[in-house]
C-alpha cells in the first residue's frame, strides 16, 4: 500500500484576531504549508471547518488562485481536521491522487459556543449548557477512577507550562494549582481555568505519496469513528441513555483502529496530543486511548508520566488549554505539532528523539479522530 507523507506544514497562530477574516487566516496557513513542501501541485483539497459557512475552503484557495481541483469542506465537530486528514490520506493510499492539501480554519463566536446541534426548546430549558456536560463527565471520571480536583488543576499547570514555549499558542502565561482552583467555578467540579477557550486560527498540511517526499514524517494511521448508541454522557449529547459500562466510547474505537492500522501499541508512543477541551477530558483520554488501564488515569498525572520530561509527554504544544480551540483547525494543529517534533524543529519544546506521535480529537456528533505519525 502507498505510504502517505507530511511534506509540509503551516499555521496561522491560534488566538483572537480582530479584523482578520477566516479566509485570510486560511491563506496564511496554506501558503506556509505549500512553501514548506516546495510548492507542489495538488490534485485535491479538503477544508475542515464548523462555523465558516458555505464554500469556506473555496474562498481560501480562490484567494490564492489555486482552484480547479476538487475542494471538499468537511464538518465533524472537534474532529473535523481528523476527518479531512482521513479522507485525504485514504485518497492517496488508494492511488487517486499523489498530493493533497488539507487545511482547517475557524473563527469562533465568543462566549459559550452556540451550536445548531441543540433544538431551540433545549436551549430555552437550559439543557444546551455545554460546560455542564463536560462537568458531568469530569465528575464521573473522579468517581470511577479516583481522579482528584487537584490533579485536574495539575493538568492545567502542565499544559500552560508547555504552552509558554509555543509561539502559536494563545495563552502564554504560567499558572499554579492554587490559581487554577481560585478561578471561578463554571460548573462544579470545573473551574474557569480548567476549560479551553474557543478562538480563531488555521492549520494546514500537504500530504504526498511518500516517494515524492523522502525523509518526511509519515501518516501511518488516520482513523475516524462515531459513537455507539446508549451512553448518556457521550459526546453524542443525547437526553437519555442506558447503563453503558459495556459500550466502547468513540475515542477508543478510533484508537484501536489506528493502532491496528499503524501496527503500533500505546507503549510505542513518544508523544500524544489529545483533546483537552477541559482538564478532565485530557485525563479521560488517557484511559480511552488505552495509555493506561481503566481507572489508572490519575496515576499518570500523579507520577509525572505525561509531563514534558516524563516517559509519555501529553500536549507538549500546550494543548487546547494554552492554544484555545478553533474547532476546524485544532486537529490539524496537533498534527503540525507532531510533524514539527518528528522533524526536530519544535524549538524550545523539542523532545529528544521523538519517533512516534499520536493526535486525538473528539467532540459533538459524536466524532473521534486518532492520527498516528512516525518518522
Amino acid at each position, binding site marked *: 500500500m502507498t505510504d502517505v507523507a507530511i511534506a509540509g506544514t503551516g499555521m496561522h497562530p491560534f488566538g483572537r484576531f480582530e479584523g482578520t477574516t477566516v479566509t485570510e487566516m486560511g491563506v496564511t496557513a496554506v501558503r506556509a504549508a505549500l512553501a514548506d513542501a516546495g510548492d507542489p501541485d495538488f490534485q485535491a483539497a479538503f477544508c475542515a471547518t464548523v462555523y465558516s459557512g458555505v464554500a469556506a475552503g473555496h474562498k481560501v484557495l480562490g484567494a490564492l488562485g489555486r482552484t480547479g481541483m476538487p475542494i471538499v469542506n468537511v464538518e465533524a465537530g472537534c474532529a473535523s481536521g481528523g476527518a479531512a486528514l482521513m479522507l485525504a490520506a485514504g485518497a492517496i493510499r488508494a492511488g487517486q491522487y499523489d498530493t493533497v492539501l488539507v487545511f482547517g480554519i475557524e473563527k469562533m463566536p465568543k*462566549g*459559550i459556543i*452556540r451550536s445548531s446541534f*441543540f*433544538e*431551540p*426548546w433545549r*436551549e*430555552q*430549558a*437550559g*439543557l*444546551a*449548557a*455545554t*460546560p*455542564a456536560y463536560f*462537568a*458531568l463527565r469530569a*465528575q*464521573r471520571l473522579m*468517581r470511577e477512577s479516583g481522579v482528584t480536583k487537584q490533579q485536574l488543576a495539575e493538568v492545567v499547570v502542565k499544559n500552560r507550562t508547555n504552552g509558554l514555549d509555543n509561539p502559536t499558542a494563545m495563552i502564554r502565561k504560567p499558572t499554579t494549582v492554587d490559581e487554577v482552583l481560585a478561578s*471561578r*467555578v*463554571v*460548573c*462544579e*467540579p*470545573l473551574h474557569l481555568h480548567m476549560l479551553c477557550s474557543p478562538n480563531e486560527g488555521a492549520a494546514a498540511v500537504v500530504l504526498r505519496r511518500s516517494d515524492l517526499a523522502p525523509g518526511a514524517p509519515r501518516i501511518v494511521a488516520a482513523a475516524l469513528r462515531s459513537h455507539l*448508541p*446508549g451512553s*448518556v*454522557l457521550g459526546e453524542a449529547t*443525547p*437526553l*437519555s*441513555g*442506558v*447503563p453503558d459500562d459495556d459500550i466502547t466510547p468513540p475515542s477508543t474505537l478510533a484508537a484501536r483502529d489506528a493502532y491496528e492500522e499503524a501496527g503500533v501499541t500505546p507503549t510505542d508512543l513518544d508523544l500524544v496530543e489529545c483533546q483537552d477541551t477541559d482538564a478532565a477530558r485530557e485525563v479521560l483520554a488517557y484511559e480511552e486511548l488505552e495509555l493506561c488501564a481503566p481507572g489508572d488515569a490519575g496515576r499518570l498525572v500523579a507520577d509525572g508520566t505525561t509531563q514534558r520530561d516524563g516517559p509519555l509527554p501529553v500536549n507538549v504544544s500546550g494543548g487546547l488549554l494554552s492554544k484555545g480551540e478553533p474547532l476546524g483547525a485544532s486537529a490539524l494543529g496537533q498534527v503540525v505539532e507532531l510533524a514539527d517534533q518528528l522533524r526536530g524543529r519544535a524549538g524550545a519544546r523539542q523532545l529528544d528523539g521523538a519517533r512516534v506521535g499520536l493526535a486525538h480529537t473528539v467532540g459533538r456528533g459524536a466524532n473521534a479522530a486518532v492520527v498516528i505519525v512516525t518518522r
Partner: protein
Amino acid sequence: MRAPPVRDGLFAEDDSGNPYLIGGRCDECGRLQFPMASTCPACGAATVEEVRLSDRGTLWGWTAVTAPPPGYLGTVPFGFGVVELTDGLRVITRLEEPDPSRLRFGIPMRLTLVELEGEGTDSPVTTYSFAVDDA
C-alpha cells in the same frame, strides 16, 4: 394555569395531577428512550410505543450551571444532572438543587414541573426537573 410546556410531548400530568415524562419503548428491542421519537436510537426500528416513564429515580450525576447558557429562559445558578429512573433509563435533567455540595450520588429523586420566567421574552414556559425526594 401553568405556562405552556417548553415543548409538547415531553411530559404530562395524570388525572391526580402527578407529572410524568413521556418516553418511548421500542417494539423490536425493548429499549426505552426519552424524549419519545418515531424511531429507536438503538436499533432503528420505526415501531416505538409511547410509555409513561417512572417519576422516581436516583441521582447519578450532578453539577450546577452558573452562567446563563445560550437561549436559556430561566435564572442562574440552576442544578443540572442525570437521574437514573427506576425503569433503568438515565435522563439529562434540570435539578431543583442549585448547590452541588448538598447532593450525593444515589439519593432518591422525584420528578417535578417548574416554570421558567421567560427572561427577555415575557413568555414563561414550563419544563421538567427533578427534586430530592424527601418522602
